[in-house]
């Protein structure tokens, strides 16, 4: 969802930018107006810039609600601890952030749904967190930036006893 919004935002801004300036380079007097990929000058001195993920947000990337980094929960299928393909981009975003901020640590909290025995579910939660850890480390995150803790079924996100609840509980949370 976040990715879609970001793309829309980028398209929207681009359209705004294109409508405000000439599409071909022209010479007026001594000034040279050229189009650049990241910025363009309009005649009246106003500047607009194209939106890109990093540059529109000037604060801490972790606080950017439109960034992939805002996704802090990864969900898993029943009895599975491998990370689904649709979460790989999220993991890459976190990996990139961590790799470029070596002083930052992340706590990976693994969970399981309530079915089955508690100690085995502690192990399942840990396997899930370790799967996320492996992917992060494969993309350059250092071992000492990652703490892994499993809560098994002890800290559910939902206290209901149905498939929806169980799906919400099979997760790894990235806690900064």
């Amino acid at each position, binding site marked *: 969802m976040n990715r879609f919004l970001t793309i829309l935002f980028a398209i929207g801004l681009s359209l705004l930018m294109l409508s405000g300036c000439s599409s071909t380079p022209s010479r007026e007097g001594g000034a040279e107006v050229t189009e650049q990929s990241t910025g363009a000058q309009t005649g009246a001195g106003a500047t607009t810039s194209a939106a890109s993920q990093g540059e529109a947000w000037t604060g801490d990337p972790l606080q950017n609600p439109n960034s992939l980094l805002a996704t802090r929960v990864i969900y898993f299928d029943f009895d599975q601890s491998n990370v689904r393909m649709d979460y790989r981009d999220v993991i890459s975003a976190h990996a990139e952030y961590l790799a470029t901020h070596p002083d930052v640590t992340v706590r990976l909290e693994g969970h399981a749904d*309530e079915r089955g*025995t*508690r*100690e*085995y579910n502690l192990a*399942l939660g*840990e396997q899930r967190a370790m799967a996320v850890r492996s992917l992060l480390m494969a993309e350059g995150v250092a071992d000492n930036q990652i703490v892994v803790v*499993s*809560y098994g079924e002890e800290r559910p996100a939902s206290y*209901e006893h149905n498939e929806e609840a169980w799906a919400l509980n099979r997760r790894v949370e990235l806690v900064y």
Partner: protein
Amino acid sequence: MRQFFYLVVFWVAWQAAAQADLTIEITEGVEGALPIAVVPFGWQGKAQPPQDVAGIIAADLHRSGRFKTLPQVDMLARPTRGEQVEFRDWRGLGVDNLVVGHIQPSGTSGYVVRFQLFDVYRGEQLIGYSIPTTGPNLRRTAHRIADLIYEKLMGVPGAFATRIAYITSVRQGDGPERIDLRIADADGYNPQTIVSSSEPLLSPAWSPDGRKLAYVSFEQGQSAIYVQEVFTGQRRKLTSYKGINGAPAWSPDGRKLAMALSKGGNLDIYVLDLATHKLKQLTHHYAIDTEPAWSPDGRQIVFTSDRGGKPQIYRIPSYGGPAERVTFQNPYNARASYSPDGKLLALVTREDGNYRIAVQDLESGVMQVLSQGSLDESPSFAPNSSMIIYASKAGYRGVLAAVSVDGRVRQRLALQEGDVREPVWSPYEK
């Protein structure tokens, strides 16, 4: 109106000190339960006796599901000694056995409890004892008497003078959870909180002498194994390695603790020597190995492993060696434990998507499913091997239940508030 509110609060608080935390309902009893009458005990003292000893005995016997106890209102006479008994009266009421007794004060704070058990049809005494005790121990003495009666009539020791430990979880609305580790008498009386936490507590395990509990606590932000003396409250942290510290299990001689640790990269079974603190790794497999439990002779450890793809029960010599698979029925079997007589394993099995309690006969390999829920777990044998207490769900609430090993007697124990889970039955106290 305000006055009423304060009164209620006070009353509940006062009651809570003595009242049962758990209420027990028999949901299924044994056909042919033995009819017995336990006559209110005589009392030779000034004030009221501090406990209804006969009431405690009758409740114990009734709770076992194997006795049908005569209500006090139906008793035509109230003998307190053998000489006073008219057996004809009791035959007419259809009771097979009769218990009479009385309590005498002894010294400044003690009592002597005398009781006799009779065969009504033969008009004979079967057993009779005189037991000195103290005020605080009067309930325990009543439970011991119930044990003696049970053993005489059933041929198997009773398990009434025992305790259970369990975990409770209470949440006020959307507020924080409070998780307690509690112990209570096996009839639910005298509940005491021994640990209270806002972080998870799990896997309580009684030491073989019944004086300590090992458990897993997340109070420091990750799992660690603690051992706590039940009667002094003293505790020490045993392990807090990186990764999971879980599933503590005492060896029968109390000198070692088996456990599941993932400090080596994946969860394996280890054995910790409590005196030397030396750690020995028992399993060396990349799969999940957890939930160890010792055989009564201390020579084997059963554990849960998914090395075959899904969780099943395996067995390994406690001094190390190859693991062999033990369960072959159903796609999921976990958390096995030996009966104290060494004949059965209790475990959690999944059939048709339902998680249930089952026993497997170690000699024949035959598995029998004993419970009927869909999310049953944490089975624990009574020390006389005749019953299993476990965690179940009633609607959305966590409750405790007990079932006899032949599956014929079933009970439910319900906590008044919150969720109850992870029951463990204490061994006989030494």
